[in-house]
């Protein structure tokens, strides 16, 4: 078969970043859906997307990792429950916690996998209205100091895509208070809480700021005309952020 139809080198990259050398891994589990979209977002931001297979035991030489959305293993048991035990996740957990602090972004199912892996606290349960919901969602960037959010202004409102079944973020009060106190709530839903998440939390970060997880999908808002109606490209900042982080940091 000729190259998979829907991926192609994109003719123009959206930023003038010199970081085309950065290599960002995108993990595929059985049942992952948004891996190709995440890879496209990485390319549009100006970096190289590297496919990572759940069953492999090496991260290769990637500079950061995106765990994309989907329904790994059908999400039948609990979202992310089985994927968390994949060999690749073992590598990612180790690298994220190492001194090198590998930047890791978990989107939707990826966020669920990160909580199941205990890289991020709390968990997700079914949306309070029990339905799958797909909509354009406004978020407020609460923390713009992480590896994945530094190109946003603090308090900036962005519109990206939300789509999930089990998106209600829950944690005990103590954890929630800690998250708030340490500024680790990275994103909050604005206007309407679409799933009953505690304290309108849409995404969080670990204390070091290298691991970020959120339910909505920045990778579906990177190209005008193929995402939310009006703005369209508000999600690109996640991917340019990590490039800026890599440049400013150890690279």
């Amino acid at each position: 078969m000729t190259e998979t139809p829907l991926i192609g080198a994109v003719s123009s990259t959206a930023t003038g970043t010199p970081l085309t050398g950065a290599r960002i891994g995108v993990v595929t589990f059985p049942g992952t859906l948004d891996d190709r979209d995440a890879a496209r977002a990485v390319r549009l931001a100006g970096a190289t997307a590297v496919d990572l297979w759940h069953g492999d035991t090496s991260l290769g030489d990637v500079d950061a990792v995106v765990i994309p959305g989907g329904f790994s293993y059908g999400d039948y048991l609990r979202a992310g429950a089985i994927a968390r035990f994949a060999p690749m996740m073992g590598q990612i957990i180790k690298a994220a916690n190492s001194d090198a602090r590998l930047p890791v972004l978990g989107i939707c199912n990826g966020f669920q996998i990160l909580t199941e892996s205990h890289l991020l606290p709390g968990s997700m349960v079914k949306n309070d209205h029990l339905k799958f919901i797909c909509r354009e969602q406004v978020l407020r960037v609460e923390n713009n100091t992480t590896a994945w959010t530094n190109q946003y202004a603090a308090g900036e409102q962005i519109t990206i895509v939300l789509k999930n079944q089990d998106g209600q973020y829950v944690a005990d009060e103590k954890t929630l208070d800690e998250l708030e106190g340490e500024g680790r709530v990275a994103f909050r839903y604005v206007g309407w809480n679409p799933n009953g998440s505690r304290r309108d939390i849409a995404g969080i970060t670990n204390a070091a700021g290298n691991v970020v997880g959120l339910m909505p999908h920045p990778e579906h808002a990177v190209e005008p005309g193929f995402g939310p109606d009006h703005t369209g490209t508000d999600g690109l900042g996640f991917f340019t952020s990590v490039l800026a982080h890599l440049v400013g940091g150890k690279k």
Partner: protein
Amino acid sequence: MPRIVVDVMPKPEILDPQGKAIVGSLPRLGFTAFSGVRQGKRFELTVDGEVTDAVLAQAREAAETLLSNPVIEDVVNVEVVADRP
């Protein structure tokens, strides 16, 4: 307060994708003792007063009509349990 437990399982002859996904992942985690897994539902109904026969009958009926889908599921158990500590 007393509770009534209702257990609902997918009918044995029906495909159970949940159980199938779990059974596939068990050996990878070193759990090799199990040849099959089926995933069902457990409901705990809290009863306000005493569990009379009428209440139990209601639970049985709710189990058959609301809590399970008789086309693909069986109610395998309805029982009163003591309160959890």
